[in-house]
């Protein structure tokens, strides 16, 4: 098995006439933790969402475990978008999990059912095994006593932890986090960050889009600064966050007054 889990080459994304991602190359090593930072609207979420095909890339290629995904597209609209079958995408998404800013839990299912759902419908795990695996994951995020609660009855921090357990249950090779704490009340941020930190300790491969620079500093092996849809500067957390060399990175970081790292 190769050392590189994901390799992105020349990724582009257009929404109609709006060119949002403009040629991103990125390599994610197994066990690596990458923090993606940048100004609002710079394309961070879009890049992340292309990695599990929540958005379809307009151009470029993505390799997962050395395997090039999709097949060459028919260049009917002049674009170079590759085509992907639904079954391939579903398979990829079980291997590249995602946690959203808005949790996106299923409100009509209990916490336990939320976490079991992917195991049962996608992985066809027998119910008993799914239940014990889901319970395990929920214990890991500290919610073993909320198994039968409905998401609507939980705090934002608890809901986000359920969402993390739901993603973990699929046993993904890579986990994507898109601003997992941005919609939380400040006092609930800590509990979610602690869970993410514990996953980092386990050696999971993770990409995290965040505005919490202090957390990014401690979390990340590598920080990627995005500006205008390109990787503008990248390096270790120290390189990018403490000693940025490029002008826009410096300008961006200067806006964060309390440097918590």
């Amino acid at each position: 098995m190769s050392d590189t889990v994901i390799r992105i080459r020349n990724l582009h994304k257009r929404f109609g006439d709006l060119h949002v991602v403009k040629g991103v190359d990125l390599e994610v090593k197994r066990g690596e933790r990458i923090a993606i930072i940048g100004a609002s609207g710079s394309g961070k979420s879009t890049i992340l969402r292309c990695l599990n095909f929540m958005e379809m890339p307009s151009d470029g290629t993505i390799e997962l475990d050395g395997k090039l995904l999709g097949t060459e597209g028919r260049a009917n609209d002049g674009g170079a978008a590759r085509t992907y079958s639904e079954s391939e995408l579903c398979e990829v998404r079980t291997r590249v999990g995602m946690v959203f800013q808005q949790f996106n839990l299923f409100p009509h299912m209990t916490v336990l059912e939320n976490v079991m759902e992917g195991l049962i419908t996608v992985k066809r795990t027998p119910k008993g095994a799914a239940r014990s695996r889901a319970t395990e994951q929920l214990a890991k995020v500290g919610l073993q006593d909320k198994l039968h609660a409905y998401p609507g009855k939980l705090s934002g921090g608890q809901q986000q932890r359920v969402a993390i357990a739901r993603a973990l249950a699929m046993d993904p090779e890579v986990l994507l986090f898109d601003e997992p704490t941005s919609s939380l009340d400040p006092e609930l941020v800590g509990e979610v960050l602690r869970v993410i930190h514990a996953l980092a300790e386990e050696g999971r491969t993770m990409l995290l889009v965040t505005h919490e620079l202090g957390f990014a500093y401690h979390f990340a092996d590598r920080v990627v600064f995005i500006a205008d849809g390109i990787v503008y500067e990248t390096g270790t957390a120290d390189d990018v966050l403490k000693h940025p060399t490029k002008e826009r990175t410096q300008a961006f970081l200067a806006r964060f007054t309390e440097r918590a790292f």
Partner: protein
Amino acid sequence: MEYTWDFKVILDSFPLLLRGLVVTIELWILAFAIGLSLGFAVSLARVSSRGWLNAPAIGYVEIFRNTPVLVQLIWFYYAFPIVLGAQLSPFTAAALSLTLNTSAYCAEIFRGGIVSIARGQWEGAKAIGMTRAMTMRRVILPQVLKRMLPAFTNRGIELAKVTSLASLLAVNELMYQGRLLSSTYYRPLEILTVVALVYFVLIYPGSYLSARLERRLAARD
């Protein structure tokens, strides 16, 4: 007003009314069950981004919602056989038109429900590898059914009422039997009052449950 009620005529006509009631219920269940399923299929076409699916679905829904049910019934009995090249029995014509009519209304209810479910629900399911079909079945539909339950019950109530129009095609359902009996016995007051009461007993529990349900759902959110 001097009127002597003849209760014996009610007892005498009861077996026939009961038989009519059975036909009414058959018509109702048939049109509602198939109308719901067909309506779901139409709503899928309706929310599709493909024009060749979407446009006919809109046409279908709008035609049935913007013409009188009575016209539809009569059209399917007298006009449709010409297109078809074969005669339809009154029951078949009535069942067909009521089913299609119900499906058009249900399609709109389903569509409203589906578009009201936040995009995040699709994304949450997608992110754990669920296909569109799985997501529809396990995540979207259960929420739509719950949210739209009052609207579906109202549709069921409305349908129970309009089955009485089938009497005009001589379908031997409750209303038809009532009219027949009242002209046989010359006792419209007794018989038609009983007919109305039977409809009430049939429909009221549905209305009552629907109203309670609506209040419960409203209280929950």
